[in-house]
């Protein structure tokens, strides 16, 4: 009896194409996906997509602890091999960084499974801005101008930051790697719909390849798109200059991503809607258009199936938002003080949860007599403080307090 081959769908990114959103929804809908025949690993006790791919590449982010990564790729492939579901989906944007050899190794890990590769691709202008912002959020220092000039310069491609960017965003090069590993008609380019499209459209497109109905999935409640904006990004960049790389990757990530970014995003809510959104400066329109055209031609030349519309990848330039770095010192100061207060609050609470030694009351040893005297004084003090607070609000109480203060010393 012929057995249908298992399908393994690798969603390889690209970076900054809504992967966090997609992964968030999939994670929240593991059971629904399973009931439509799709295994989305990463549940309790299962290997994580990210660590599995890090392990495939040999990557060990500083501070993550080697033990959490070692062996994760093998665990993942075994989990998929042992599953009863006809389709398995992995989603991790770092997969797009695979060399041909690594891609081959990844594909081979699944034996004779029917391998499908999904590549989500987005308008290069938006991607470049997001990528710069992401770099700043990972302790980098370059300004947008430095960053964009490097991206536009062919001679700078082998050097940071352009190397990192094109490694992640050179669509023809990435398609070239994967079409050597799986047949071209198994590599699916999914275009990210432009700003203003119907929400859920991207997920619908991905679902049409993988084989799930995006409409049946529920969005996780706490899906908060942490958008830091032009001011917050510039603030972080200037803060990085002073941090001098003293934090390791994981420490930095935890403070900035988990604490500062939400604080800055929340503070930004008060600014006029969208006013702080990053906009591509005019100086960059030409090279972005040129490169976007190269991407589109490259995709067409590869002959891979496209879900969505290649026109989605043509940069749209509008007037909303503001160019990166165009922030006044006053705005930065406001943001810095917001961030300082927010971070202090989180810090204080974290420290507070960790106190403990303080509760070893030495007063326990005090004799009963002393404790009674002490408690009486405490009650008296509280009473006085309450009276004084009242005096700050109530004129009658204030007069009484004044009289008391004058008489206190002339008993």
């Amino acid at each position, binding site marked *: 009896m012929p057995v249908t081959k298992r399908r393994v769908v690798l969603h390889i990114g690209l970076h900054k194409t809504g992967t966090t959103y997609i992964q968030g929804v999939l994670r929240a809908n593991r059971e629904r996906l399973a009931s439509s025949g799709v295994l989305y690993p990463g549940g309790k006790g299962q290997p994580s997509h990210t660590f599995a791919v890090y392990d495939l590449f*040999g990557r060990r982010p500083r501070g993550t602890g080697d033990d959490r990564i070692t062996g994760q790729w093998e*665990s993942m492939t075994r989990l998929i091999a042992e599953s009863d579901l006809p389709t398995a989906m992995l989603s991790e944007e770092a997969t797009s960084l695979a060399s041909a050899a690594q891609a081959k190794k990844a594909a081979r890990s699944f034996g004779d499974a029917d391998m499908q590769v999904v590549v989500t691709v987005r308008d290069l202008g938006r991607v470049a801005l997001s990528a710069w912002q992401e770099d700043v959020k990972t302790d980098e220092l370059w300004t947008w101008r430095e960053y964009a000039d490097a991206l536009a310069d062919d001679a700078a491609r082998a050097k940071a930051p352009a190397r990192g960017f094109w490694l992640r965003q050179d669509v023809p090069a990435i398609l070239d790697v994967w079409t050597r590993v799986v047949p071209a008609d198994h590599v699916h380019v999914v275009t990210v719909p432009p700003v203003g499209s119907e929400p859920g459209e991207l997920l619908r497109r991905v679902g049409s390849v993988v084989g799930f109905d995006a409409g049946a999935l529920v969005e996780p409640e706490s899906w908060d798109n942490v958008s830091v904006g032009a001011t917050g990004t510039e603030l972080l960049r200037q803060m990085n200059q002073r941090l001098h790389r003293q934090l390791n990757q994981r420490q930095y990530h935890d403070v900035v991503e988990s604490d500062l970014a939400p604080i800055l995003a929340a503070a930004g809510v008060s600014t006029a809607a969208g006013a702080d959104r990053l906009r591509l400066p005019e100086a960059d329109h030409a090279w972005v258009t040129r490169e976007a055209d190269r991407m589109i031609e490259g995709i067409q030349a590869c002959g891979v199936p496209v879900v969505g519309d290649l026109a989605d990848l043509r940069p749209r330039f509008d007037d909303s938002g503001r160019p990166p770095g165009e922030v006044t010192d006053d705005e930065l100061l406001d943001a810095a003080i917001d961030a*300082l207060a927010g971070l*202090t609050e989180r810090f204080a609470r974290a420290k507070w949860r960790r106190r403990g030694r*303080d509760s070893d009351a030495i007063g326990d040893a005090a004799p009963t007599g002393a404790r009674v005297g002490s408690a009486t004084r405490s009650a008296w003090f509280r009473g006085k403080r309450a009276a004084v607070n009242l005096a700050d609000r109530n004129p009658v109480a204030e007069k009484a307090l*004044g009289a008391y203060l004058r008489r206190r010393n002339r008993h």
Partner: protein
Amino acid sequence: MPDMDAGSRRIFLHVGLYKTGTTFLQNLWRANRGRLAQQGVYYPGGRDGPVQIFAVSDLFGRRPRGGEDRIEGRWDELTEAVGASPHPVTLISDESLSLATVGEARRAAAGFTDREVHVVVTVRDLGRALVSSWQESVKSDETWTWQDFVDRVRDPAVRNQFPARSFWIRQDLTAVLESWQAAVPRERIHVVTVPPPGAPKDLLVERVGEVVGYDAANLTETPTSESWDNRAMAAADAEVLRRFNQILDHRLNERQYHRIVKRILAPRLAQHGNPGRVGLSPDDRAWVAVEARRIVDDLTAGGYQVVGDVSDLIPAESQTGPRPDAATTDEKLDAALHGLAELAEEYATLWWDGSGARPDSSRSADRRGGGWRSRIRATRFRTKRGLLSLADRSRVAAGALNGYVRLREARRRRAASRS
């Protein structure tokens, strides 16, 4: 050991005032506890000794929010420790003792019946006390602007309201002396003036030493605490912190605020910024001088023993200067960014030291044979990254890498055109 009849056993209560260099003095005495003891002076505290500030809080019935359980029974603990001390002289220092009512002052003195009780009051000119009190209010979660603060301290109509009340209750020397002379004979109350700006810092230590009976030259240990020298604040730091308090809106309790802001943030800001000279406007200096003169007159009329020069207590013309909140946006931004980076680092370190960052071994339990391959990949990755970062620094390596990238690209294009 000297003979210990009642007269030769003395206790000196250094009662402040606030903002007269008390933190500086206390840290110095704390660091030199052993050297004071060699000179016959017991300064309570140390590893197993009573904590002076807790004892005084207990005397007043004060329970700082969040630290309630540490206070109970501490005053009796202190008086017992003093009673048991073999040293002829004891020194206690806590500026909050200046807030004592007559009853509280009497209760404090009554704690040391077998000692001759003396009171030491350090006093600074009222102008500098005013600036420093505003700065302290900012470091204590308050949000008054400098001008608001000064105007309220000046206005007799709001003297019984916060924050003027809080200023005068701490800085009205006449009232403080009146309370304490009800508990301690006038001739045992010693007023020590803080030397004017520019005078050597040791002068204050020497002046108090003259009263208490130690040789300041012997106190050679330097305090280690980061914030031991409670420096004046730069205008930018003060203004950033004031606005920071507005945003924080009292969401932290006293101790939380103290731990992060007083112990970490404010000292880090102080290390970074250079406090320029700040002062009073000519108009403000004039009214402060009138108040200061009243205080000096009362002091002189009272016949108290004074160490130092009373004229140091009246703000001089030369004390006018830029307001203590006058800072440019640039300076403030610089301060805020510096504070942010310092705090992020501290926070990350706290987080890192906690359990959250420890490698999670449960995930790696199942690795059957994947281990060695996984490690080879890790080594290869590290090597590659090493080469890449070399390319960012070395032109030769960059050239080689560039060539490689181009080669790969060309190969890809050829492959694409064939298909």
